[in-house]
C-alpha cells in the first residue's frame, strides 16, 4: 500500500491511497484503502489521513475518521488523536500498521505499531527526509 497527504499554501488538505492488497488474498477482498473514513480521509477543518496495515482492523475502527472525530468533537490535537488510535485502539483489536496524517495547522504525524514503515516527507523551507523502520 502507498499513500500521500498534503497541505498546500492555501491551507487545503488532501489524502490519497493506493494498494494491491494482501498477498494471496481471496478474489474480491477489499481492504481499507479505498474505504473513505477507514484508510483514506480529508477535511480541511481537521486532518488528512492515509493508512496502511491490516485492512480489516482499520475498517472496524474506521481509523481515519476516528482521528477526525476526536479532533472535531473532543478537541484533540492531531498528534493526540492519531497516536491514541494507532498505538492504543488498533492494538486492542489485534491490528497492526500505521498512517500518515497532516492537520490544518500544518502539523504532521506518522505513527505505526508494526515493525517498520517506508516514509518520506517535506515541509516547506526544510530539506526532504526519508526513513525506514
Amino acid at each position, binding site marked *: 500500500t502507498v499513500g500521500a497527504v498534503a497541505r498546500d*499554501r492555501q491551507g487545503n488538505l488532501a489524502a490519497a491511497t493506493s494498494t494491491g492488497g494482501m498477498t494471496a488474498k481471496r478474489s474480491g477482498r477489499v481492504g481499507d484503502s*479505498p474505504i473513505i473514513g477507514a484508510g483514506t480521509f480529508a477535511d480541511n477543518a481537521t486532518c488528512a489521513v492515509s493508512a496502511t496495515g491490516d485492512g480489516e482492523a482499520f475498517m472496524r475502527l474506521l481509523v481515519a475518521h476516528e482521528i477526525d472525530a476526536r479532533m472535531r468533537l473532543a478537541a484533540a490535537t492531531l498528534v493526540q488523536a492519531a497516536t491514541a488510535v494507532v498505538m492504543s485502539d488498533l492494538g486492542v483489536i489485534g491490528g497492526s500498521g500505521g498512517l500518515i496524517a497532516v492537520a490544518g495547522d500544518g502539523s504532521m504525524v506518522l505513527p505505526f505499531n508494526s515493525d517498520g514503515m517506508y516514509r518520506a516527507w517535506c515541509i516547506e523551507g526544510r530539506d526532504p527526509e526519508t526513513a525506514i523502520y
Partner: protein
Amino acid sequence: MTKPFSIAIHGGAGVMPRRDMTPEREAGYNVALSRALEPGKAVLSRGGSALDAVTGAVAALEDEPLFNAGRGAVFTREGNQEMDAAIMDGRDRSAGAVAGVSTIRNPIHAARAVMERTEHVLMIGAGAVAIAREAGLVFEDDRYFFTRDRWEALQDTLRMEASGTLDDDPSRRHG
C-alpha cells in the same frame, strides 16, 4: 496570507525484516521514496493544490515496482492482481475510489476520475474500468504489473498454507 506547504508519503506496512535489509536494498528504497516525493513537492512548490500533490505522489509510488500498488502490486491466490485506490479533497469532502481493478496503470487516476466525472464515491470492477477508459487513462497488460518478487511471495505463501507453516510476515503479506 499563504502558509508553508507540507507533504508526507508512505510506501506501505510491508517492510522486510532488518536481517534481510542490506545496505544496497535500503539505499534503493530511500532513492525510490525520494523520487516519489518529488512530483508532489514540485506541485506544492509552484503553488499548486494539495489534491494535485497527493495525486502526483501516489502515481509516482504506483510506478515504483518496490511498492505494493500499481506496478509491483501483490497477487491474489488465483495469480491475478486486484488494485484499489482512493482520493479525498479536504476542501469539500469530495471523494473518489475504485476497487478490484486491473490493467489501469495508475489506479489513483481512476479514483480521481470517479470523483470528478461521476456523482459516486466508490466504484468496483468493470464499472470502474469503464470510467477510467472514458477519462482516457493509460492501460497496461499483465506483463507491466508483474514483478518476480511478488510472484515468488505468492508461491511461498501458497506453499506455506499447504504445509501448515504459514507465518505472519508482514513483508510477504503486504508486499
